[in-house]
């Protein structure tokens, strides 16, 4: 399943995904860790498994009007609108900083058309310091009336194929939870050549300001993240594990090591910490520390824990 137990080194934390070795299974989730540098004053980037950067598009994007965020019970809704500096500025202005660290960098990418995806992938191909691409398919396909790529297995597969053709980098597909059957999506993107899957992106949600009788977000709906969604995310990882032939990266509501371990035991080879980094900029490193303590205490390794749930 793409996971190698590092027996010879005796190390407990490293995991392998799509041929890349990560020093520990804890990554930052795209869109919650900027381009990495913003967190350097608060945390030690070298102690992360990987930094996944804010989603990159072909051209810079300005994002949505405000309000863009609203708090919800144990969670938050966001409608940032995928504001980002664009892939070119990322390579020129953001990546050089990240190269100073030993931590892997994963570029999260998205597009509004198949061509966009291909083109962004091509531009990142062979760029020093980028270890893999994570393809965000939870975006509306502007050519198909805004239907989200990630909720249709055929469209999702086409995006993955387009990206795979444009790069030699390992491709991680980030799946949307807003689907009836996550297993169908996993199979579709794996058949299209995806090397790993990240599960889950945000659930679509909405908050109404009842005094104003208006949506709390300018875009009406937004993406729900944070601990509120964790049970849904863990369930989807567990379902996906039953059919997946490639490694799974678990995401959704991880606040502490115990939460990350839920995902790993349910079948994730690695995890991403998202919203938690807003509340504690050192959260991801603390999660890694907590996992280290757990595997030590249980005399096991992360790789052995993956999918070790007894049902």
């Amino acid at each position, binding site marked *: 399943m793409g996971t190698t137990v590092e027996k010879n080194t005796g190390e407990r934390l490293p995991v392998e995904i799509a041929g890349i070795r990560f020093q520990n299974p804890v990554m930052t989730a795209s*869109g*919650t*860790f*900027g381009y990495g540098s*913003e*967190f350097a*004053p*608060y945390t030690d980037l070298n102690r992360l498994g990987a930094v996944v950067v*804010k989603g990159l598009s072909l*051209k*810079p994007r*300005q*994002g949505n*009007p*405000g*309000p*863009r*965020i*609203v*708090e919800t*019970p*144990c*969670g*938050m809704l*966001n409608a*940032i609108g995928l*504001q980002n500096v*664009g892939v070119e500025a990322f390579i020129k202005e953001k990546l050089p900083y990240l190269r100073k660290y030993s931590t892997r960098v994963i570029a999260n990418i998205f597009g509004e058309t198949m061509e966009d995806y291909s083109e962004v992938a091509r531009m990142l191909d062979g760029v020093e310091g980028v270890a893999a691409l994570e393809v965000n398919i939870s975006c509306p396909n502007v050519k198909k009336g805004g239907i989200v790529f990630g909720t249709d297995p055929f469209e999702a597969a086409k995006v993955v194929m387009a990206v795979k053709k444009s790069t030699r980098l390992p491709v991680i597909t980030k799946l949307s939870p807003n689907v009836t059957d996550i297993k169908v999506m996993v199979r579709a993107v794996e058949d299209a050549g995806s090397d790993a899957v990240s599960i889950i992106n945000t659930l679509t949600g909405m908050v109404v300001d009842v005094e104003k009788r208006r949506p709390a977000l300018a875009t009406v709906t937004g993406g729900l993240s*944070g*601990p509120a969604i964790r049970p849904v995310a863990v369930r989807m990882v567990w379902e996906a594990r039953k059919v997946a032939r490639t490694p799974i990266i678990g995401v959704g509501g991880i*606040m502490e090591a115990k939460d990350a371990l839920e995902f790993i035991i349910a079948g994730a080879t690695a995890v991403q910490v998202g*919203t938690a*980094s*807003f*509340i*504690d*900029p*050192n959260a991801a490193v603390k999660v890694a520390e907590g996992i280290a303590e757990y595997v030590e205490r249980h005399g096991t390794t992360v790789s052995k824990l993956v999918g070790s749930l007894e049902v």
Partner: protein
Amino acid sequence: MESKDRKILFNEVAAPGCFRLGLEWRSAEVTPGQFVMVRVSDGLDPLLRRPFGVYGVHGGRGKNPLKGNVVELLYKVVGKGTRILSARERNESVNVLGPLGNGFPEAGKDEKVIMVGGGMGIVPFLMLAKKLGDGLLLYGARGKSEAALAKDFKGTACRVKVSTVDGSVGAKGLVTELLEREITKDSVVYACGPVGMLKAATKVAAAAGVRCHVSLERSMACGIGVCLGCAVRAKTHGERENRNYMMVCSEGPVFDSEDIDWELL
């Protein structure tokens, strides 16, 4: 720029529904107008930190009003987070991220500073007044009890004029009407308060042909420029092409009022 547990030295009523929170803080250094993000409880509800301006820094050597070992906040109870904060006790700790943001810029040599504060918008001006050593504060208080906060400015060389909508204290009417009366060609306006007040202050300043800096509030998740949640629309397109949004937390909270697209706020 740290995220740390800070011991609560005091958390006491300053006016009805309004509290002073003192935090132990080894060598704090704050620019007037900066803010901190407070995690009001360790639980998951509320999940996000809450932003509060810094009201004062105390206990510094050499009486530098921007340095010290106590950071004081002044906050009003408006919802769940502030209610929980108001119940926190002395000697407990709260996790605080900051100081964050840019703070108010220096005034020009010949500029006379007029500070315009509405409600809790008074917060950044106590430090600013101490730093300036003079200046004029126009304070639009919500009523008698809030107006009492003006007493905190007694120790400064700053003149204070209060207005209340009902005229119960000071001038009757909007604080921006006071501003209209006080503004001159060599004024510079610093404003903090509700959006309506900031818009009005911007107009008054523009009419007088002087600079106006405003401190904005938006819902915030991170406070450090990464979630991109606290965006406001910039007016100046040319220069900022492809970058029409500014982040209140990291590029503000203080902006030149000309840079803001007020229509879209």
